[in-house]
């Protein structure tokens, strides 16, 4: 790189050695760096003083080859095995002979459990500060999911626990299961991929992340920052069901719901069919009782109105008036009677007066009434002739007399 090279062209291409030399120079520019990673593979070849490591990023599907002298390994990480977390001091090197790239380490430190836990604690504070654990950011689980996405180990106890207990509670439940490695260096990228697949599946409306119990190291993938952020970013509600009650990987805090175990997850994601049926039955019973009670009360009410005399005995309406008519008739009859009696009295009186006018008293004093045969009362002598027979009425009885002479 001391002098500017001519640009490569189709007419004048660079030979491999030139490209190789330039690559080596570029790679060397990075210099010494401290790297954090997980050992995916370690090969100590017999007779060789160089050890090869495959160093993975715990959160992503990326890896680098690391070479180190056996002494370097023995000094910093004598017990190093696959899956361990390491911090190493290395410099990238390009091997022109094969065109490969690797890191050459001059110091390797195995990260102990204490350090790992301290890192988790720092990450937890960071995520909490960013609001990934905020209660108000949690999404509600559907009451009855159409389809449940399950991310878990193949043929694992966790898988069986979730499937069996969920189906026991709600037999018609539907699952989409994606099996992943739940420990080891590949687990985080696999889980993140599965999460993305299920989150993009519109038929899945809740995702369960399940894993049985294990050592703190085994559960480390579930405290991975990238996984936590992926769970936080998912649109579908996520339930974490990792390990035992006492385990609390960071994803538990980010998940929308934390189930203490895979069995507990089953209880949280679907209602209990039998319980729900019973609730519906009892609600139905109360519904029936209330509506029938209402009907009974109303029926009684109508019956009460109907049995009131005014409605039940309409004949009373007529009877009352009939009684009035009878009373009036009586009154009118009584009135007529009275008038008749008065008329009779009047008659008697008149008769008495009539009787007062009779000639009987005069006859008693000796007078007589003389009548001709034709009934004429004789008042003058010339009203009769000789030999007429006259009728003489006395006070007591009467007699006939002949006219002898008159003058």
């Amino acid at each position, binding site marked *: 790189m001391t002098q500017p090279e001519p640009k490569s062209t189709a007419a004048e291409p660079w030979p491999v050695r030139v490209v190789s030399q330039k690559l080596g120079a570029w790679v060397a520019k990075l210099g010494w760096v401290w790297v954090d990673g997980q050992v995916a593979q370690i090969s100590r070849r017999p007779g060789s003083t160089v050890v090869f490591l495959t160093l993975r990023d715990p959160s992503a599907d990326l890896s680098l080859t690391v070479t180190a002298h056996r002494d370097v390994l023995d000094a910093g990480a004598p017990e190093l095995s696959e899956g361990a977390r390491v911090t190493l001091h290395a410099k990238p090197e390009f091997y022109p002979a094969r065109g490969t790239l690797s890191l050459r380490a001059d110091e390797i430190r195995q990260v102990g459990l204490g350090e790992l836990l301290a890192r988790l604690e720092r990450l937890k504070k960071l995520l909490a500060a960013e609001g990934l654990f905020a209660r108000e950011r949690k999404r509600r689980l559907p009451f009855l999911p159409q389809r449940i996405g399950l991310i878990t180990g193949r043929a694992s106890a966790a898988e069986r626990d979730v499937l069996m207990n969920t189906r026991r509670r709600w037999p018609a439940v539907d699952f989409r299961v994606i099996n992943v490695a739940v420990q080891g260096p590949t687990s985080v990228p696999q889980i993140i991929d599965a999460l993305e697949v299920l989150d993009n599946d519109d038929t899945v409306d809740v995702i369960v992340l399940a894993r049985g119990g294990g050592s703190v190291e085994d559960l480390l993938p579930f405290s991975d920052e990238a996984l936590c952020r992926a769970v936080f970013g998912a649109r579908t509600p996520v339930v974490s069901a990792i390990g035992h009650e006492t385990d609390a990987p960071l994803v538990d805090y980010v998940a929308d719901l934390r189930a203490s175990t895979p069995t507990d997850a089953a209880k949280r994601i679907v209602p209990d069919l039998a319980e729900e049926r019973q609730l519906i039955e009892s609600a139905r019973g109360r519904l029936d009782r209330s509506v029938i009670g209402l*009907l009974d009360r109303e029926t009684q009410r109508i019956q009460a109105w109907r049995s009131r005399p005014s409605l039940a005995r309409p004949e009373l309406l007529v009877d009352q008036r009939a009684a009035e008519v009878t009373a009036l008739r009586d009154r009118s009859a009584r009135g007529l009677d009275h008038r008749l009696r008065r008329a009779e009295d009047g008659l008697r009186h008149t008769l008495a007066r009539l009787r007062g006018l009779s000639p009987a008293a005069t006859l008693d004093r000796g007078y007589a009434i003389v009548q001709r045969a034709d009934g004429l009362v004789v008042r003058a002598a010339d009203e009769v002739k000789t030999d007429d027979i006259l009728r003489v009425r006395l006070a007591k009885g009467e007699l006939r007399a002949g006219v002898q002479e008159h003058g």
Partner: protein
Amino acid sequence: MTDEKLSYEQARTELATVVERLEAGGTSLEDSLALWERGEQLADICQRWLDGARERIDTARAARAEQ
């Protein structure tokens, strides 16, 4: 409002009014008879509502029993 359109509550309220008026008296015989006939009509309407409601309940229950 025609009788078919009367709700149960409307019919019941009118029935109560009719009975009160009948009991208060002071109406002509013709009016009283008309009131009584109206009361019978209203009581029938109420009863039909209640019978209909029971029938609907019985139907729903029968349907449930068949499930």
